[in-house]
């Protein structure tokens, strides 16, 4: 195991720097993400593939120290998303709770400041989010939705690319605690 690999697996720079987003940003940013999801596609339909609330959840989970705040943060964003949809409340909540928990768990083991790791994690969690939501829809609601894996992979790549830029911007909002 090289020094670089060891550092990737053990160090947690986000946690080390102990930067914290201000509380107000913790509320405003997800709200803006949800707004952008319901508002922007009205004018630019090509941006409907963007899952900004998911990316915000992933970023928060990677930035925070523990899985519990992350899972609650994901649950909060997911429930708001459910409230603005026609689905029963809890579908996105469950999925984003899991995403927040697993992202926070992963962030303890990987150098999430690394762009490659960020890209891979964003892509993975997007795919996981979409797939698990499809599973829940079929299992809990009995919906016979199809799962387009190829399209999900493409959109996952696009969201991962957006996550690179978005995480950079969100990191600049951090303030030293």
């Amino acid at each position: 195991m090289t020094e670089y690999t060891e550092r990737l697996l053990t160090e947690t720079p986000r946690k080390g720097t102990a930067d914290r987003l201000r509380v107000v940003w913790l509320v405003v940013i997800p709200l803006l993400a949800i707004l952008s999801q319901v508002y922007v596609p009205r004018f630019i339909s090509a941006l409907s593939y963007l899952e900004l609330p998911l990316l915000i959840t992933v970023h928060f989970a990677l930035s925070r120290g523990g899985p519990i705040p992350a899972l609650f943060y994901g649950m909060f964003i997911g429930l708001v998303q459910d409230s603005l949809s026609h689905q029963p409340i809890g579908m996105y909540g469950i999925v984003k709770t899991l995403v927040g928990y697993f992202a926070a768990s992963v962030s303890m083991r990987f150098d999430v400041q690394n762009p490659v790791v960020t890209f891979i994690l964003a892509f993975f969690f997007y795919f996981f989010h979409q797939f698990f939501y499809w599973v829940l829809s079929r299992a809990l609601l009995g919906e016979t939705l199809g799962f387009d894996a190829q399209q999900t992979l493409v959109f996952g790549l696009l969201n991962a690319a957006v996550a690179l830029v978005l995480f950079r911007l969100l990191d600049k909002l951090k303030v030293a605690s």
Partner: protein
Amino acid sequence: MDFFLSRYRHLTVLLIVIAAQLVLIAYQVKTNNDIPLIRVWAVTAVTPVEQSLEFVRRYTWGFVEDYFVLLGVRNANEKLERENGQLKIENNYLKAELSTADRGRALSVFQARSPSKTLAARVIGNGTGANSRVVFVDRGSTTGVESGMAVVTPDGIVGKVVDAYPTSSLVMLITDPTFAAGVVSQKNRVHGTLKGLGHAECLVDYVQNEEHVDIGEWFFTSGDDRIFPKGFPVGQVTAAPNGKTFKEIYVSPSGMQGGLEAVLIVLRGVHQEIPGAEIASPAYSILPAPTEATAQTPQGAPQPGALATDADRLRAIYKEVGAEQNHTYGEGPPGSKPPDFTKIPSLHGVLPPNAAQAPRVNAKAQPSQPAQAPAPPKPAPALSSAKTDNPPASVGAAAPAGPNPPPAANRPLVNQ
């Protein structure tokens, strides 16, 4: 238990949260009820921001967008205006083509129906001169056109050929100040001379102030000028005030009202009858001819065509007396025996024998005679032959003495 919770605290919280949400979903699915509280909160939190964003967008980006849209609209408007102009031009061209085709068809129909021999020609240009109203047509002397020939259209006369060249001819229009032609009005048969005035209207001159000409009355060529055959329409009277000596009758020429493109040159004119007043101005209407039922005259009323004066009746009595005595008036030599007039009955008394054949004036004076004579007398042969195409307007059993048709001028005209 405490060890488990402390060891798997994160996982325990996760399971609890997941389980709570599953219960929430199960409740919604099972009861088919919603959770309005959460939705109301979420919507209340999101929609004001959304409205604000929309407000900002509308007055920032929307304004810019509208600006670019207006730029596009301006370009589109200019493009549409260009297209509209082209379509207008095309429409006018097609209308002109259609009008030309209609005029050409009317010309050919008129040419085929007119008894005069005509030659179709097309106006190819105007003549020079400030006051002259002359045009060139594309038919000349090689096609038989000669100076002095009339030029007409189906609507009326146009002018006359003043110069005939090999391939074209110069036609003086009826609006030229030097133009003149004999005309006659349709209704009142007023004769005059048509003169050009240099503008759209013409003047009918040399009509006495005492003559009666109605506004809207048609004038036709009279044939007096030996250029225009009789019976071609000239135009309608627009004004007819009295002048110092003659009436000032202004006529709107009918031959040039639809534009002047194609004309007919009258190579050999044939006089025609002036049409009846049916095509005259429809400004007034005339009752139709009376039927037989309405023509029946009450007994005792003067019969149309009967002798109306005492002198006429006395002349008839004398003729009867002369016929009885085999005397022919005006043939006897001077000094010969005249007829015996002593047996002449009184004018209002008993009629001489065979006087029943004479026209009667008052049926009350002849109580022995039936009011309805069985056999009407024969009309005068000359008059009868002259009116064979005009049957009497009223031949009733109660009007035996009136078989002669009224004069043409007094015939009732029907305005169709």
